[in-house]
């Protein structure tokens, strides 16, 4: 055990730092010892904040009778954020109606429980979203963020 690790454990024993802090510091030391500390992450690993939600529908190029509908939609994430935040404007009576309608559809969800922090988390999680569907008719549907 290195001197630094001992110091961290002593500080933890004396309640000078929390368990989480100690864990983080020990991880940093481990990484240092492994020669990985303070190495900047490659650019590919540092994910940029998603700016747009894209929806693409491409028709089957080999379909008979020419091409089908082609859809290309780009929605700014800020617009999605603003849209979701609009839920806070829904009056409580309407919220009850929405909850009731959702319950009728078999969805047991309370719309009032949606908080701003949850929305932010949800939008962050959208960054990982990628839907790629190919229909039986040969149409390709792609939903992704960029």
């Amino acid at each position, binding site marked *: 055990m290195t001197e630094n690790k001992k110091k961290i454990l002593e500080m933890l024993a004396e309640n000078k730092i929390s368990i989480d802090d100690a864990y983080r510091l020990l991880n940093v030391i481990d990484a240092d010892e492994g020669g990985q500390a303070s190495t900047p992450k490659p650019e590919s690993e540092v994910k940029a904040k998603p700016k747009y939600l894209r929806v693409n529908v491409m028709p089957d190029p080999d379909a008979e009778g020419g091409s089908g509908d082609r859809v290309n*939609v*780009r929605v700014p994430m800020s*617009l999605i954020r603003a849209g979701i935040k609009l839920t806070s404007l829904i009056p409580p009576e309407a919220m009850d109606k929405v909850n009731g309608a959702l319950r009728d559809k078999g969805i047991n969800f309370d719309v009032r429980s949606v908080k701003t922090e949850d929305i932010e988390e949800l939008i962050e999680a959208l960054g990982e979203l990628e839907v790629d569907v190919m229909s039986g008719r040969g149409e390709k549907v792609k939903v992704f963020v960029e």
Partner: protein
Amino acid sequence: MNRPPMLMHVRVRNESTNFGLWLPLFLLIPLALVVLIILSPLILIAVIVLWPSGWGKLAILALWAAIVSFCSLRGLKVDVQGRNERVYISVV
């Protein structure tokens, strides 16, 4: 809050029609501002009257949400292309 959009490009094309339109949204902003200033005393009275019932606060929030949503429109692009028709909307 984002910078408000400046222009909206609408293009509609089908067998009988083919037109493109650049809507100068930046001209709407001063216009909307003037309307808001003119109506502000009425809005203020309405908000004060409705405040006890809770609708006043809701009205202010709705107004703010509308402004934020409008400003978030920048970058929106919708392009739907059928066999003989196309609708294209872009906000820049």
